[in-house]
């Protein structure tokens, strides 16, 4: 195990923190609106560019963007919900149509991000592609600050989400809408509003993840697109219906991906790392064929299912 260095472990933890933040949103949306949101990719990219834009215009501190990205992307998700999802839900659109809709929104956002990137370059004379902000990061105990920030943010968000869902009236109404929307509607819960809130949260989480990514890896308008398979994979591995499963899924996938690549690269050859994107795909296909309910399905084949 000398091939698995400390830096690999930290790489795994950081990557998994990102994956988990993104996957939680995907699972949340899947549980509430029953749709696979391909636009999540853009949520992440937008978050990244929020951070970058702020460092270019306002403050060189890269972490300033985190709360801004949370709000902005949350609002973006709300826009997608009210402008696209709601009208389609009301018309009983099929699953496939809904998926194409989210894919279309993703495409639109891709356009917007690219336009923004071009705009940044032409207006501020800065590069807007291949951006990496890791130099602006602080160091703590010899490790890049992003490690701690990512993990800490994940912990914070998970705790906040847990408290929201379990200790507030709003949270309980949210969970009711997730479990049984028609019943919730009947007892007076505004299900549409609950769904909108879950979209805001999911978008916000993706925005947070995106806002931190420039500290860790190079960002481009297609960053989100490159990660979408991993996001879905983490979500599915954790069980598409289990919100906290997404976190477990994120760490599992991260483990296989980062550590796996590192081991392969040392054992076989360095060029293996070029094929790293194949790993999430293989894990995804394997999970989907062998254990479609993810961890929830594998563990508890009979008896009660593992819920929130």
């Amino acid at each position: 195990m000398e091939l698995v260095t400390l830096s690999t472990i930290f790489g795994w933890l950081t990557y998994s923190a990102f994956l988990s933040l993104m996957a939680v949103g995907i699972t949340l949306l899947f549980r509430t609106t029953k749709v696979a949101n391909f636009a999540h990719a853009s949520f992440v990219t937008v978050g990244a560019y929020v951070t970058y834009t702020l460092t270019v215009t306002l403050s060189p501190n890269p972490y300033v963007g985190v709360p801004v990205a949370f709000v902005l992307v949350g609002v973006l998700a709300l826009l997608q919900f009210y402008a696209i999802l709601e009208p389609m839900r009301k018309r009983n659109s099929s699953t496939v149509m809904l998926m194409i809709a989210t894919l279309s929104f993703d495409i639109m956002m891709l356009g917007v991000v690219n336009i923004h990137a071009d705009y940044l370059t032409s207006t501020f004379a800065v590069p807007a592609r291949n951006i990496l902000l890791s130099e602006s990061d602080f160091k703590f105990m010899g490790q890049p600050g992003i490690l701690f920030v990512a993990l800490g943010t994940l912990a914070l968000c998970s705790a906040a989400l847990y408290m929201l869902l379990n200790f507030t009236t709003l949270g309980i109404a949210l969970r009711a809408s997730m479990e049984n929307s028609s019943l919730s509607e009947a007892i007076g819960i505004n299900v549409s509003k609950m769904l909108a809130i879950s979209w805001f949260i999911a978008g916000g989480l993706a925005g947070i993840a995106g806002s931190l990514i420039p500290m860790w890896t190079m960002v481009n308008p297609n960053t989100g697109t490159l990660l979408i398979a991993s996001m879905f994979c983490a979500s599915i591995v954790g069980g598409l219906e289990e919100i906290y499963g997404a976190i477990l899924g994120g760490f599992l996938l991260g483990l296989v991906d980062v550590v796996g690549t590192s081991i392969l690269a040392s054992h076989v050859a360095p060029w293996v790392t070029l094929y790293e994107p194949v790993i999430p795909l293989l894990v995804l296909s394997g999970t989907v064929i062998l254990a479609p309910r993810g961890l929830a399905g594998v563990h508890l084949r009979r008896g009660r299912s593992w819920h929130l």
Partner: protein
Amino acid sequence: MALIDQVILFVVDLLALFAVYLIISTGLNMQQGITGIPNFGILFAVAGGAYITGGLSTRLAVILLGIQTNLDPISENIAVLQLVNPILRSQPPTAVVLLILFLMIGGMAGALMGLISSAPAVRLREDYLAITLLAFGEILNVVGIGYKPLIGGPIGVNVPDIFGWAGSYRFYLATLVLLLVAIAIYAFAGYIIKTPFGRTLKAIRDNEIVARSLGKNITQYRTSVILFGSLLCGMAGSLWVLYSGAVTPTYARFDWTFLPWLMILLGGIGSNRGVLVGSLTFVTLNKLIIYYKFEFVGILPFDIVWLNYLLLGIITILILIYRPEGIVQEKWTDPKQNLGAADKPT
């Protein structure tokens, strides 16, 4: 260049692109429109056909033309082609044979990609299926960039000049060939849809459980359709490479997955005629935007192609919300008419 020449060139190029997209959309329509298989990864099959053609065509040409050389067809691509192309240009029949060969190989590569993606595809729920297929689509570009011997890495390679023997009429010939292939495929698909086989596909789409109760082997049908659709996509990829003369690992999801979906959506899912309408509309729209983008350089602080993304995204969403059945409705003819004269009463 005179205006009329510009227009002609524009139209000829547009028709070629239209032909390629007609083939892809036909393949996609067979899968989604007729059989209800949401293939979000047709990029996989298209790129597969493109890469195989790019990767193997030069090598195959060298072998079949009996050229003696130690040069590597991929890494020393230009040099090898300088040996290949003059021979091709002087031997039209050989060029035709090679064309057919490359098409077949491209189709088979596409079908292979379809086979790989059909393993998860035939058994999965729609959303899992879409996610998996989407992910598959991204794979080939990774491999294409990383594995240099395949298509020469990020810069790509050129392919033999199949249409070169027509001299100054090369473009017209190329477009004509593409159109002929596309129309043949389109007509064939139209025929298949009207057979009992096609009817069974629609039945599986409309109600899988009942179809099963009536003895239909769902998995087998779905696999056949995915293979067929993917074969078409592979051929389209191959044709595109042969037309463009080169292949690069830049096959984007937008161009080869999203656009075909938009085309069949606009046309009307399930309708073969709609595929024609949708393909023509969006190829034209896309080409006009790209053509005129140079007019906008300097006026807008960004590349106008991104506006294209926005525009097409909005159009798709509008169609999905307000007219999900598309423009052309699914057509059917009374089965009695389909039989025609092929059946002789005893």
